[in-house]
């Protein structure tokens, strides 16, 4: 009896294996909706981008409210380029969907792959995507941008470009930056702090005046607190690119003595109850609650939150106001701060099996042209925007139409089918600035390199061997850092112990991580020459 049932199990598993194998080896996945040549109704006109009309099936992400894929803007794109976009937008769980599609090699003509997807490089090497280097002649607009924007190089795999990057042509720049209740500065007769030392004094005065308050609050623990603060104080949190060391190199912040000063400062704030005693466990909502209810006066995080706090504070205290402070000098004499990366660098890849590769490449390059950028960010000229002095201005009627919705920016962009949330590869955020509170544009003017702001950078591309090694090393080192940061800040581990901690990090491989990063970075620099 027993042998019988075992036989059954065996035969069955072998059947399963067979089935699985045949499923994988058969590369003949039905093409689905591939680029069929659309019926030629209008005939080919000379001024269009392509001579013959084609349809391109694009898989990308959706947001809420859903993007209107029937928007007249897409008809207009067809009119200008002869390309009919067949947009398929996934509302949620896109990462897994994209991974499944790549793993089963059932790609549509074009699909979006989020930046940082681990399978991207592997799939590129396996020949799933069209190598764009073979079509450089058809990429005048992108090539031009790539000459200036070196970050795009980081999207390359083994020195070859396989994807169209999502770029920030103009951004309403935000940053994790010092934001303070400036009305309190006036009330206490204090001047705006120019150094971190003065900031400490100011926070101390605030605490003296309002003993029940929490002068400085944050969210999501030490990692998110140190990300902006450590860099501003002359070091950096975990792996970061330090422009001040040897003309720019990757460094593991915690593994160097400069980080001690950061912890000394933060520990001082914590010990004197100037930093939120709950900083380690605060959620985003808790932080926002404290700041918008007037319980906390300073934060070093996304400056755009300030707009909401100001609205919330207005009801109880008309004078209350959060404002962006000018960057403060640290003890090493530096004035510097991160701002959010310029580009998103999400990938748009063309399937190696797509039918009209040359035409698709031409169309996607057009999206980076002046005309393409305008249409995909503003809509149709004369209907959605007009040119005033060489600059696009959104029509009053369009702004009015969406002014009363709960979220004018999203509704405007998604109904028109334009911009970052809908479909644009060269994103211009001026429309966002127009419908957003004026403070944001004012602050964005201060968040510029001249004032000490530095773009956060993406990791350089690694080889598969490097990625594997990084994974093991980083899990060890990052865990150690996660465990110990709070101890140093709260003071359960004395700072005199820090040199020992550095040694611990080095023993776990912090310097090896640095080496892998810098090797990859040097390689990238050589390739891009």
């Amino acid at each position, binding site marked *: 009896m027993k042998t019988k049932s075992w036989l059954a199990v065996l035969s069955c598993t072998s059947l399963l294996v067979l089935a699985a194998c045949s499923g994988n080896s058969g590369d003949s996945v039905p093409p689905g909706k591939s680029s069929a040549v659309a019926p030629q109704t209008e005939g080919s006109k000379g001024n269009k981008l392509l001579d013959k009309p084609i349809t391109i099936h694009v898989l990308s992400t*959706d947001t809420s409210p859903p993007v209107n894929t029937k928007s007249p803007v897409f008809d207009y794109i067809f009119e200008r380029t002869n390309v009919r976009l067949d947009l398929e937008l996934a*509302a949620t769980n896109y990462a897994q969907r994209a991974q499944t599609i790549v793993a089963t090699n059932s790609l549509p003509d074009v699909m979006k792959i989020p930046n940082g997807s681990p399978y991207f490089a592997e799939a590129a090497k396996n020949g799933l995507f069209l190598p764009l280097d073979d079509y450089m002649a058809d990429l005048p607009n992108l090539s031009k941008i790539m000459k200036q924007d070196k970050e795009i190089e980081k999207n390359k795999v083994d020195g070859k470009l396989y994807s169209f990057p999502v770029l920030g042509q103009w951004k309403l720049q935000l940053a994790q930056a010092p934001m303070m209740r400036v009305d309190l500065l006036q009330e206490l007769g204090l001047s705006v702090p120019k150094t971190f030392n003065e900031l400490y004094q100011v926070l101390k005065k605030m605490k003296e005046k309002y003993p029940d308050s929490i002068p400085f609050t944050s969210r999501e623990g030490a990692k998110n607190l140190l990300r902006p603060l450590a860099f501003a104080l002359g070091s950096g949190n975990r792996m970061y690119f330090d422009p001040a060391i040897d003309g720019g190199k990757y460094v593991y912040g915690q593994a160097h003595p400069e980080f001690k000063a950061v912890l000394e400062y933060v520990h001082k704030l914590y010990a004197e109850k100037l930093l939120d005693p709950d900083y380690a466990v605060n959620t985003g909502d808790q932080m926002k609650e404290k700041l918008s209810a007037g319980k906390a006066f300073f934060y070093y995080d996304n400056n755009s939150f300030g707009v909401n706090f100001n609205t919330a504070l207005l009801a109880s205290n008309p004078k209350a106001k959060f404002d962006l402070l000018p960057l403060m000098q640290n003890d090493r004499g530096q004035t510097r701060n991160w701002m959010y990366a310029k580009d998103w660098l999400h990938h748009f890849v063309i399937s190696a099996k797509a039918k009209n590769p040359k035409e698709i490449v031409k169309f996607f390059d057009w999206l980076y042209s002046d005309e393409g950028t305008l249409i995909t960010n503003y809509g149709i000229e004369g209907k959605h925007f007009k040119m005033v002095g060489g600059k696009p201005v959104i029509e009053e009627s369009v702004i009015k139409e969406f002014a009363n919705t709960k979220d004018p920016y999203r509704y405007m962009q998604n109904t028109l089918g334009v911009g970052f949330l809908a479909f644009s590869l060269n994103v211009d955020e001026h429309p966002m600035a127009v419908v957003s509170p004026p403070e944001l544009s004012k602050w964005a003017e201060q968040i510029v390199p001249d004032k000490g702001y530095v773009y956060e950078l993406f990791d350089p591309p690694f080889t598969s061997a490097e990625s594997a090694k990084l994974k093991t090393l980083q899990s060890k080192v990052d865990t150690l850092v996660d465990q110990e940061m709070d101890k140093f800040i709260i003071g359960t581990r004395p700072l005199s112990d820090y040199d020992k901690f550095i040694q611990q990090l080095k023993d776990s491989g912090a310097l090896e991580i640095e080496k892998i990063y810098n090797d990859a970075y040097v390689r990238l620099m050589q390739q891009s020459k």
Partner: protein
Amino acid sequence: MGKRMTLGSFSFDAVIYILLTAMMFAFLYPLYYIGIISVSDGISVMRGDVKWFPVGWNWEAYRTVLANPLVLTSYGNTLLYTGLGTFVNVVATALCAYPLSRSRLYGRKVFTVLIIITMLVHGGMIPTYIVVNSLGLLNSIWAIIIPPAINVWYMIIMRTFFQNIPNEIHESAFMDGANDLVILWRLVLPLSLPVIATMVMFYAVWHWNSFFPATIYLHENKLYPVQVILRSMVIDGSVQADSSRDLTTIVTSMKYAMIMITILPIICVYPFIQKYFVKGAMVGSLKG
């Protein structure tokens, strides 16, 4: 209650009542909280003013959510998937369970083992996707309904229940000239209403809550079930530390309004079907 309560039993009861009330509160308050947030004014929510009663009562969040045409279509889709899906599930499960419950089926043990193996060893997402794709089910309602047509575990519960129907009933039906289909339809199913009701419940709840297959297999948003829309608003729209797009995150009250809209039907129906759930937990427990 003729007997007078002793102090001991009275205090025992009191403790139990207090504990149960506390538990009830712990279960109901989150639900209530979602409700009051969804009708409160966004700024009060951010300030943390909303604790017990709505502040700045308004229906704006519901109006905005319902203005999204996808919410209503997706609602219809969920009803369709739940209704049709559950029907297919129950029919397929019964058709599979019935033969396996008959001892005269040739190779019954082998079939049972083969089926049980699929419960233990799953093909995984990629092979399943390839099968669904090759069958041309992608982007159609059938991709949602056919792959999960039989849940092996529920099928075994049903089979066990069928086995408990005395064999004599089958024999006498055969004598009267009935074939297996007639026996299943006219005898076995009417005798198995409790287990059928339980299966309907289990499958229906599964369909109602399911979102994952839809996100993988469906392309057009007009086919999405409501859970996909909910997920895209609540999870994908939430604030992330690394995001530079915080400005455009979805307002909390809108998320909560969407949650209310999604769970309301279940909340309304639950008190009436809850007793079947309790029964269902016992159905199919081992009886030999």
